């Protein structure tokens, strides 16, 4: 009887739903400096984010995966890549970071997405 019930259920529900969660996340961040002529490069942004994560999360935070993919010196924006499980911790560390090389600094997350393409300004509804 149980086998017949299972077979009937398979016949009535032929479709199955699979949920795939993303493993990686990308941030588009904007960095506001106190000194407007401050140097801005991938190396500087990586150094800043390492300090932010270390002060907020300690040595354990230093071991979290964090990559700076691109830094735009004209708009003072950068694209950061991290894993989905570290998302909240790294976002919080960036938001709470306020001093870099004895000067005030502010990191704002403008966009976050599991797809790199959605961070681009050109993506939008079709005209």
């Amino acid at each position: 009887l149980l086998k017949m019930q299972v077979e009937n259920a398979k016949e009535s529900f032929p479709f199955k739903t699979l949920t795939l969660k993303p493993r990686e996340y990308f941030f588009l961040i904007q960095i506001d400096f106190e000194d407007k002529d401050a140097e801005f490069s991938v190396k500087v942004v990586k150094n800043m984010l390492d300090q932010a994560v270390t002060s907020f999360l300690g040595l354990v935070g230093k071991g979290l995966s964090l990559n700076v993919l691109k830094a735009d010196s004209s708009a003072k924006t950068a694209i950061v890549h991290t894993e989905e499980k570290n998302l909240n911790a790294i976002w919080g560390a960036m938001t709470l970071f306020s001093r870099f090389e004895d000067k005030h600094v502010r990191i704002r997350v403008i966009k976050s997405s599991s797809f790199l393409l959605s961070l681009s300004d050109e993506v939008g509804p079709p005209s």
Partner: protein
Amino acid sequence: MVRIKHRYILTEIGFEDEKERRKIDTSKLYWTIRNSIQLHFGDFGMGSLLSSLQVKYWNKETGICIIRCSRDQYQLCWSSLTWVTNMFETNSPVSMRVIHVGGTIKMCLRSALEYDRSSLLLECAKEEEEED
């Protein structure tokens, strides 16, 4: 009023030099653990553990101590204890081994008695083997 829940971590502290054990008191232990949390977990660890972190019991003779921490972050505290390598102020090499984690001090003390009993039995067995 919601009850604040804690965890009590029974720890054995091993010293390289046995004389150093008698110089240690609860405040030095507290600062050692606190510095370890600050180093390994930063501001996040300090904020989540500092309000409930306390050294409840320390025995200089046996090297057993009971540390209180919050229930939600007891694993943070446990790993900070494991990563302790030097004592505060004296910088003497030290290692901390967690024996039992309990919800009450009573269960921790019971576990400490069982641990002492088993280690005494082991020592007696070793002495008998050496005599033989």
